[in-house]
C-alpha cells in the first residue's frame, strides 16, 4: 500500500469529517488554497472497490457506503421518503426535462398535478423553483437540486437512467414537436425556444 501524500491525506480527512458534500473549491478553501482535483481523483481510485466510496454528485464530493452492501446496511427504520406515484412521475419529468413548468408536467401526465405534489418534492430538497419561463403568463419553472443527484446517486443529470436513449428516441421532445416531425407538418404549438431550453439544461 503506497503512503498517500499529505495533500491526499488532508483531502481525505476533510471529506471524512465534513457533515455535507463539498465542492473542490470548498475543500481547497478549507486547505488554504491547495489544488485538490488530482487528490480527489487519486482518492476516488483508492476507495474504488472498498466498503466506502468517494463519489461526486453534482460537482460536490462525499464518501458513502458502497451500493452493493445495501442489503447489509439497510435500516429497518426507513428514513427515506416513499413518494406517491404522482410525485414520482412529476420528479422524473422535472429531472428529464428540466426546467419545466407545471403546465408542461401536466401535459405529459395528462392530469392535473395537485399543489401538494410539487411541495413534497421541494420539501424533500430535490426540486427547486428555477425562475419563470419568459412566455405569456410567466409560469414558474422547476428544476432538480444537487441534493436530488446525491440522493439518487447521480454524478450529474447525464447519469439519469436511460436519458440518452430517451433523447435519441425523441421521447423528451414535446408531443407536438414529435408529431410535426413524424407528419412532416409545421404544426407545433410550442416554439423552438422551449425546445432549445430543454436541450441545454
Amino acid at each position, binding site marked *: 500500500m503506497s503512503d498517500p501524500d499529505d495533500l491526499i491525506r488532508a483531502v481525505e480527512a476533510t471529506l471524512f469529517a465534513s457533515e455535507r458534500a463539498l465542492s473542490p473549491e470548498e475543500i481547497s478553501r478549507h486547505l488554504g488554497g491547495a489544488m485538490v482535483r488530482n487528490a480527489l481523483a487519486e482518492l476516488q481510485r483508492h476507495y474504488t472497490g472498498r466498503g466506502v466510496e468517494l463519489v461526486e454528485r453534482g460537482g460536490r464530493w462525499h464518501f458513502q457506503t458502497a451500493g452493493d452492501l445495501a442489503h447489509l446496511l439497510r435500516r429497518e427504520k426507513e428514513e427515506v421518503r416513499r413518494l406517491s406515484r404522482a410525485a414520482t412521475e412529476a420528479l422524473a419529468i422535472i429531472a428529464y426535462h428540466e426546467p419545466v413548468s407545471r403546465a408542461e408536467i401536466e401535459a405529459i401526465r395528462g392530469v392535473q398535478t395537485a399543489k401538494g405534489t410539487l411541495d413534497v418534492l421541494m420539501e424533500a430538497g430535490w426540486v427547486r423553483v428555477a425562475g419563470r419561463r419568459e412566455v405569456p403568463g410567466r409560469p414558474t419553472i422547476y428544476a432538480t437540486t444537487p441534493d436530488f443527484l446525491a440522493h439518487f446517486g447521480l454524478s450529474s443529470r447525464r447519469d439519469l437512467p436511460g436519458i440518452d436513449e430517451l433523447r435519441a*428516441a425523441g421521447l423528451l421532445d414535446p408531443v407536438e414537436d414529435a408529431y410535426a416531425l413524424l407528419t412532416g407538418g409545421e404544426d407545433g404549438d410550442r416554439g423552438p425556444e422551449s425546445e432549445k431550453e430543454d436541450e441545454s439544461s
Partner: protein
Amino acid sequence: MEDASSPPTLFDGDEAWDGLPANAATRDDDALHLELDNWEGPLDLLLDLARRQKVDLRTISILDLVDQYLAYIDEAEALRLELAADYLVMAAWLAYLKSLLLLPRDPEMQPSPEELALRLQLRLQRLGAMREAGARLMARDRLGRDVFLRGAPEGLRVDRRNRWQADLFAVIQAYGTVKARTAPVVHMVRERAVMTLESALARVAALLGTTIDWQDLRSFLPPRGEPGWDDPALRRSALASSFVAALELAKQGKAEIAQDETFGPLRLRPAAAA
C-alpha cells in the same frame, strides 16, 4: 394476458407507489376492476391498458386500446363506480376517434384520424417513458436507504477570531478626550483694565477741590497723555467710575451736578458752601 405471479404489492395504492414500471401488466383483472383510484387520470388508465397489450407502445393497436378503454368504462358504470368527468370525456373522444377510424374517410379532414391516433400514441409513449424513468430512479441506490453517509462526522468548524484594529492616534486622542472630559472645571475671567470706583472717587474729589465753576465731567478724567489712558475701554471705565463718583459726592453734599439736555454734557462743581 396477466402475470399473476407478480406481487400485487407493487401497486399498493396511490400514497405509496414506489414500484417498478410496466406493472399494469402484472395486475389481475379483479384489481383492474376494483381499484379505479389507482389511475392518475384517463391517460394513465390508457397507458395501463396499452401495456396489457404487451407490445411496444409504438406498435400498439389504437383500435384495440379504444375498445378496452370503453369496455372498462362500461364496466365501471355497470358497477356504479363514480367516474370522474375526464374519464368520460376521454371515453367520448375515443368513441369518436374509433368511428373516424372505421368509417370511410373524408380526405379533407385535418388532422386525419390516423394523425389523431398518432398523437395519442405519442402522448402514451411519453408518459410511459417518464413512468419508467421514475421507477428506475426510485430503484437506484438511494442515500439514506441503500447507501449511507458517515454516521458520525466530526464536522468542519470555522472558528471566527476577532482581530482588533486601533491606531495610536485614536488611543492618544481618546486619552485627550478622557482628560478633557474629566478635568476639574475652573472659570477664569479675563483681566481687564478698569478705573476702580475708589480711585475715581479720590481723583474727582481732589480735582473738585481746585475747581470753582462748572466743569464738564470728562475734564475730571485722567489726561490722554498719561501711559495707558489712551485705551478707549479704559476711558469708558474711567468715565463710568467718575460718573458714579460724582453721584456719590453729590449725595455727600460735596458736589452739584447739572445736565442741560438729554445726553448733554454733565457738569460738575463744588457744592456752594452753605
